[in-house]
């Protein structure tokens, strides 16, 4: 069929080519879009666990379990806490750094080059490094606190309930603020200089200029950066896993860790499918709300 078309007119041949080429993408869409939904839906109504490959119809049993599972809702809460603290911190710190660097300070180039490193290294590498930084016996963080307080510090940063969140957030913000910084620096450099000069001549102060001219100009980039980091934080896994494995207990367990533990360590396949579907629903609602916000504010 394809050969026949190719002989009659090159156009028809091209048409076949392009569908052949686009086919992998359609396959991918099916594979990461539609197939998982169908698979998860089917499996979530069954009772598959590690010891029991029970594919009979269990009705809504797994969904009913969702509501009683405190550990699941806590993991959602932990994820929200990480996101709610890390995202604004990364944004503000990144913006501050971009503002500082828009002036051509001495050493700017070197510093920018070094700042890219955290974004480049694997989160698991960053996690390994920070677990040494926070080491209770030899870690530099305790050492520095020791210098400040004048007595020896042996704080258990990755074990003490009141210290694990600051420790994880420090590593997370360390790694991803430079991402915000790089994007915002590019956006700030693209702001129309003549507008800034005009504002300065009109006697507008720093903050006024920032909110009236700079912020609207960089907002599209900022919105995308927030979206990307927000979604990334929602699936936060590596750095938490490297530092605390979700502990102490399940205190820092995120949704990703919960899903991993339930699905791939305890092999509660059916129940995890129900969890995954719940995540899709929650995330869709969150994204749609966020997009509507952005659209309205334009």
């Amino acid at each position: 069929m394809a050969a026949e078309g190719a002989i009659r007119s090159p156009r028809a041949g091209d048409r076949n080519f392009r569908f052949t080429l686009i086919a992998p993408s359609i396959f991918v869409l099916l594979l990461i879009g539609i197939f998982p939904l169908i698979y998860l839906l089917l499996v979530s109504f069954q009772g598959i666990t590690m010891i029991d490959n029970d594919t009979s119809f269990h009705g809504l049993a797994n969904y009913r379990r969702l509501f009683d599972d405190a550990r699941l809702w806590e993991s959602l809460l932990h994820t929200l806490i990480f996101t709610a603290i890390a995202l604004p911190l990364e944004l503000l710190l990144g913006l501050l750094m971009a503002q500082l660097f828009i002036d051509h300070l001495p050493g700017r180039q070197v510093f920018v080059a070094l700042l890219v490193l955290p974004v480049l290294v694997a989160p698991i590498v960053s996690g390994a490094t920070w677990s040494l930084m926070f080491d209770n016996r030899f870690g530099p963080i305790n050492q520095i606190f020791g210098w400040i307080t004048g007595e020896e510090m042996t704080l258990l940063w990755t074990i003490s309930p009141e210290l694990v969140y600051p420790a994880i957030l420090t590593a997370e913000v360390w790694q991803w603020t430079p991402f915000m910084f790089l994007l915002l620096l590019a956006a700030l450099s693209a702001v129309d200089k003549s507008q800034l000069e005009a504002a300065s001549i009109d006697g507008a102060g720093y903050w006024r200029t920032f909110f009236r001219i700079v912020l609207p100009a960089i907002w599209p980039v900022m919105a995308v950066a927030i979206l990307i980091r927000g979604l990334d934080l929602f699936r936060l896994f590596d750095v938490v896993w490297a530092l605390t494995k979700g502990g102490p207990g399940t205190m820092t367990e995120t949704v990703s860790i919960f899903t991993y533990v339930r699905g791939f360590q305890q092999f509660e396949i059916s129940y995890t499918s129900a969890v995954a579907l719940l995540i899709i629903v929650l995330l869709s609602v969150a994204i749609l709300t966020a997009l509507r916000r952005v659209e309205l504010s334009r």
Partner: protein
Amino acid sequence: MAEHAEVRTAGPRLLGRAVIYALLILLAMYYLAPLFVMVSTSVKTLDEIRAGNLIALPAEITLSAWAKAWSSACTGVDCSGLRGNFWNSVSFVVPAVLISTLIGAFNGYVLTMWRFRGSDLLFTLLMIGCFIPFQVVLLPMAQTLGWLGIANSTTGLVFVHVVYGLAFTTLFFRNFYVSVPQEMTKAARIDGAGFFRIFWRIILPLSPPIITVTVIWQFTQIWNDFLFGVVFSSGERQPITVALNNLVNTSTGVKEYNVDMAAAIIAALPTLLVYVVAGKYFVRGLTAGSVKG
């Protein structure tokens, strides 16, 4: 900012500068300290680390921790270092990067130059693919790999990363090709040039910048991945990120901080190397992906 500073008097200006530099020094410490500790710890002896000052420069430099991390450190029961896992990573990252970039280029080409009914819809759907959280695809993907008979194999990891990376590579190429004037391809079509001829003769010669950006982006993403590696591979087949995590968290024996850090640097080296070779493209990739997307 510079303009405002000039209008103000010298006093606040000096104070402003002092505040700025104080901030910069603090930020520099926050950002550079871990990098410094990582490198200096990796070349120290264990005795020196035990003596307790990780912030100090190494008294004597030794590469024994590096050698051990590479070829004889223990992760679990296996004591052959990270060497094998390093090459595991290379063996699935390279094909995954090449394949996802190639298909992304074709996708971008078709979606901009050979539009068809539903091509915009297809693109929108692919973009949603960028945002699907990992947690959701893990179970169905494990099932798919099982059905295809490529579970716990290099092929399986290539497959997973290609599938998951396609949305991004398509986005990159599509956004790049959108700015190529349609007249160029139209003229070529009137001259009788076909689909592949136009791609080879017109589109590909324009593409090196976006190919570089995409390759660097995909390389860092796939090399740095941990979750897919830990879920879809086991034992000897694990990528270096998983092995590093096992090494650092091994609870048996003496904790060798210098070996941990040497291993961490080894795991980070390929991405750093890519950055040194083509750093400006990486930053461009970050900004291109978000500014245009």
